[in-house]
């Protein structure tokens, strides 16, 4: 038995999601630049850094070469930054009144929210796909399973971040404040994560808030999950195993998605953009 309202909701979600995908092709030049920059970063700067750090850190990475550790870190931070930059897209749309148009469409608000989040996070994954290929080629990953699981986990992560930034933009309703907050959160959260250093190193630094934030940081969780997928030996670093990471990631994303849906259904109203 097919529930007609369920199938029609799925249809609506996918159609709404196609809004963001439709816009993606306008970003070809931007994408080419990002890929070039990323490749340069990976091939030149990341090598330089890992040349400096490499030997001393092996005991904290379960034997994983720092260069590889770092590659998955910057790939994760790229997914994060791309997801959070969707905030600028939404802010631009609000500015141009597209939000009013969207709110007038014959779609349930909650369904629209899910479609919008899904579209933005799928765009993020597609946008970062060339960079993922660069990284996975360098790492020599050919296991289809781990590639698919990587993509799914990146999508789940992105859903959480996009939901968060949607809530943020709609709450502040201001171009300037969006620029400031999104920029700050982007820069800060990447630094307070395991993108650059493994958890034990951060713990050893003795700065407790740094460690706690890095531990709870969704960016850390995705980076470490991707590392475990590619280098099972990295698993050694985690006292509590991999299950808490998975549970945390899913709870983070679904929690924020539910909040975004609630916001769309109960509070969201056009107008008042500054």
């Amino acid at each position: 038995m097919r529930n007609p309202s369920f199938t029609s909701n799925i249809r609506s979600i996918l159609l709404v999601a196609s809004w963001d995908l439709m816009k993606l092709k306008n970003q070809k030049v931007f994408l080419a630049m990002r890929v070039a920059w990323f490749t340069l970063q990976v091939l030149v700067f990341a090598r330089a850094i890992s040349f400096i750090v490499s030997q001393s850190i092996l005991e904290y990475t379960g034997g994983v070469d720092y260069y590889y550790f770092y590659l998955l870190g910057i790939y994760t931070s790229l997914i994060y930054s791309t997801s959070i930059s969707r905030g600028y897209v939404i802010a631009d749309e609000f500015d141009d009144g597209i939000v009013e148009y969207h709110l007038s469409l014959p779609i349930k608000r909650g369904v629209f929210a899910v479609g919008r989040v899904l579209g933005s996070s799928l765009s993020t994954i597609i946008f970062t796909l060339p960079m993922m290929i660069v990284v996975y080629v360098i790492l020599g990953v050919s296991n289809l399973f781990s590639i698919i699981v990587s993509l799914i986990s990146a999508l789940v992560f992105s859903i959480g971040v996009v939901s968060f930034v949607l809530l943020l933009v709609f709450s502040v309703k201001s171009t300037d404040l969006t620029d400031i907050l999104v920029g700050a959160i982007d820069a800060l959260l990447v630094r307070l994560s395991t993108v650059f250093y493994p958890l034990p190193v951060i713990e050893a630094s003795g700065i407790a808030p740094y460690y706690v934030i890095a531990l709870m940081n969704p960016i850390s969780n995705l980076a470490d999950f991707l590392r475990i997928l590619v280098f099972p030996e990295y698993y050694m670093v985690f006292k509590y195993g991999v299950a808490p990471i998975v549970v945390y990631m899913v709870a983070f994303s679904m929690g924020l998605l539910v909040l975004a849906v609630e916001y769309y259904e109960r509070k969201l109203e056009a107008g008042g953009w500054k």
Partner: protein
Amino acid sequence: MKSKAVEIENFTKKFGDFTAVDNLNLDIYENEVFGLLGPNGSGKTTTLLTIATVYKPTSGDIYVYGHSVTREDYVVRKLVGIAFQDPKAMWIDKPYELLTWHARIVGYSSSEAKKVVQDVMELLGLWEHRNKQFYQLSGGTRKKVELAKVLIQKPRVAILDEPTAQVDVLSKHALWDVIKKLRDEGTTVIIATNDMFEAEKVCERIAIIYKGKLRALGTISELKDSIPSGDLVEVQFEGGGIPEGLLRALRDIGRVEARSSVLKVYVEKGEEKVIDIIELFRRYNVKILRIMVKEPTLDDVFTYITGAKLREES
């Protein structure tokens, strides 16, 4: 009893401390072209966006076919389509792409969407612009893309916010025909405008709103009749003068201004009084060469009601 498509009940909308719409009460009947007439800043757009569930009322409620915009917003959105005052698109968007997405969202299958989008775009003369980017389009063309969304959707209630602003005069007439056709096919049309010519041309009933408040409501002739002695019956007659008896009889009908061969009578309901006037001329054997009833314009009505001008002189 005509059935009601939209009922606006004690609707108030505030933005912060500012009251944009103040306790509005209004019924819009099924299958009429209804006009919201008022100068910029009257609260027309605010009202229309609330009917479309884009804004929420601060107090009061609006019902579309009995469904509340506050409690059943989704049901309302399935009944309503809106063409916004400011066309909603990013500068980089292309009309065809935008309208195809719109068609899919409002329920067409992929192949139906292609067809209806092409039909509507051809009807509005948009087909040649289909793959241009929005910043390349003229203001009038952008407004037509906005109108196309509603024509594609064919909603029960169509909301058109200043549909022909920025559109050239020739296209205006074509769009008015399109709007009337939409009504003929069963849609209730609500138009906001500050163009009294447009209001006279397409609207059957009109609400005059000014500074957030309803000032007058009725058909165009009802509104015009609401101005005391607002009509003017102008008679050109043969011969050099008017018999004293005829003049006296005419003065019972309205205020009279007589010149050598033209006579003006200021009356209420000119279209009815003109028959009496013709009858009097016949009785006194004065031959009428030409007779005209001039109504006050909606501008006159607006000025009479609000003491303001509909459009600021530029």
